[in-house]
């Protein structure tokens, strides 16, 4: 691991100032000289692998603002401070009741220990677990722009079928982010130049030609809060995650589904898909396919077909297309049948 200077600022503005001092034009946060750390579950791992090489770590755990560590459940929204730990959010009874999908997406992620460590903001920024990205001796456009993609023709069972590009097929493995994108969350960020809000659906960038640029964030922007609007769909929501083993594994496929039902008819569906795409993936085509329809097996299957219409398989991950469809069908039917 590369040696680094450690700093522990007391305020968001001080943290942003440090990052700003070491930011360089055109360099994304993941390659910046100064990087933020909160739980460390992702960054420490990648630093030890030599994938992340910050010269300076800015520890956000000393930030004094209490709101950063609080969850506020209001009538029409839930506001998560950025430093709230995954485990705490997963265990909050109000969240489980008001929006089960959010709590489930957290509970089924990682392990108890990691959930105690990982901050919510850090979690949504977690980087891909693509094996070729993790091992620095392989070519990888995300890690070393222009070096090529070893996964494309390599062993790619865990790789994405949606949102891929000619440069990158690495999966976004997070769970919580699927709930956030399905629910239309907003991320609040702060830098020296002020605050801004970013729609969660705009936070992550498709890989396209620049898979090394993973988010809309500037290196000196600190996420301070995540706000999730609640609506008629929130209580009838589920997160279904399919894994090779029963627990402590990344999703082969997952589906976050929230439904506003009028009798048997879907007034509004909110759907996101995990484990199958390069970024958190809102399945708008599936949502539209369901809108105003009675949710029976056939409608669920039609929605799943729509969701994967653009999917591109590689040698080892073709199974993710039928699996992703069936995961969505199962999630839709289970969500429909929830007693709320």
């Amino acid at each position, binding site marked *: *691991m*590369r*040696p*680094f*200077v*450690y*700093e*522990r600022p007391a305020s968001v503005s001080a943290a942003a100032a440090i990052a700003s001092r070491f930011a360089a034009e055109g360099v994304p946060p993941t390659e910046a000289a100064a990087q933020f*750390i909160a*739980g*460390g*579950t992702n960054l*420490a*791992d990648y630093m*030890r*692998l030599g994938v992340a090489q910050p*010269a*300076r*770590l800015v*520890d956000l*755990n000393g930030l004094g603002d209490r709101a950063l560590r609080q969850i506020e459940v209001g009538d029409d929204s839930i506001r998560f401070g950025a430093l709230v730990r995954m*485990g705490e959010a997963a*265990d909050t009874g109000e969240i489980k009741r008001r929006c089960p999908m959010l709590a489930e997406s957290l509970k089924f992620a*990682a*392990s*108890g*220990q*990691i959930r*105690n*460590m990982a901050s919510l903001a850090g979690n949504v920024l977690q980087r891909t677990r693509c094996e070729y990205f993790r091992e620095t001796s392989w070519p990888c456009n995300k890690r070393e722009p222009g070096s090529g993609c070893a996964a494309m023709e390599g062993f790619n069972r865990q790789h994405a079928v949606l949102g891929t590009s000619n440069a990158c097929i690495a999966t976004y493995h997070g769970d919580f982010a699927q709930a956030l994108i399905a629910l239309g969350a907003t991320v609040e960020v702060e830098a020296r130049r002020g605050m801004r809000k970013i729609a969660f659906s705009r936070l992550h960038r498709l890989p396209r030609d620049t898979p090394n640029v993973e988010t809309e964030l500037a290196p000196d922007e600190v996420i301070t809060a995540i706000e999730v609007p609640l609506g008629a769909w929130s209580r009838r929501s589920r997160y279904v995650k399919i894994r090779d083993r*029963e*627990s*402590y594994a990344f999703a082969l496929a997952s589906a976050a589904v929230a439904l506003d039902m009028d009798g048997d008819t879907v007034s509004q569906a909110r759907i996101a898909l995990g484990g199958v795409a390069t970024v958190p993936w809102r399945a708008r085509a599936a949502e539209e396919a369901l809108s105003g329809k009675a949710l029976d097996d056939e409608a669920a299957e039609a929605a799943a077909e729509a969701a994967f219409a653009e999917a591109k398989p590689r040698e080892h991950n073709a199974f993710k297309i039928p699996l992703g469809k069936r995961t969505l069908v199962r999630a839709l039917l289970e969500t429909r049948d929830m007693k709320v």
Partner: protein
Amino acid sequence: MSETPLASLSRRSFMTGSVSAAAAGPLMATSAKAAAPQPAASAEPRDLSAISLRINKQPYNLALDNRTSLLDALRDHVGLTGTKKGCDHGQCGACTVLVDGKRVLSCLSFAVMNKGHEITTVEGLASADGNLHPMQQAFIDNDAFQCGYCTPGQIMSAIGCINEGHAGSEGDIREYMSGNLCRCAAYPNIVAAIMQAQDETRKA
């Protein structure tokens, strides 16, 4: 000889051994400098940081590389080798310790980030008179290990799991203990041990 408990060995060897030599030699030389207050901006990446940790209710003043994980700090610099390294990447749970009562992976936590926190390791569980923590006794009663390597992490995780309120049923225990791999696969016995010890652990 090979049955000598490690504590006596390490205490003795540590006086002349790794603290004074491997760690303290090069470390102490720079620790005074590191310990002195310095403006952050002039810090160099290779400077050691002065770190005060509370481990098992004892204060420790260390001078550490910023890169040193809490796990390596415990093992190589404090001499508490009960906490184990199984992967160093947060994938096995063998390094689980309690920080302020919550279970975390010490391999993914830089020691420097733990200033001022109360750290509990497996060495801190038994009482001073040698009485085992109820979870330790339950692990023995239920043969909840074979090789014993993942055991300190399992025990710390089990206590954390109960503290979190996630040990209400066997199903919950299985799910919430899945972050601790046991390659000998003592899982059913681990579940039985936690069921046995949970009431007493809550009181402990």
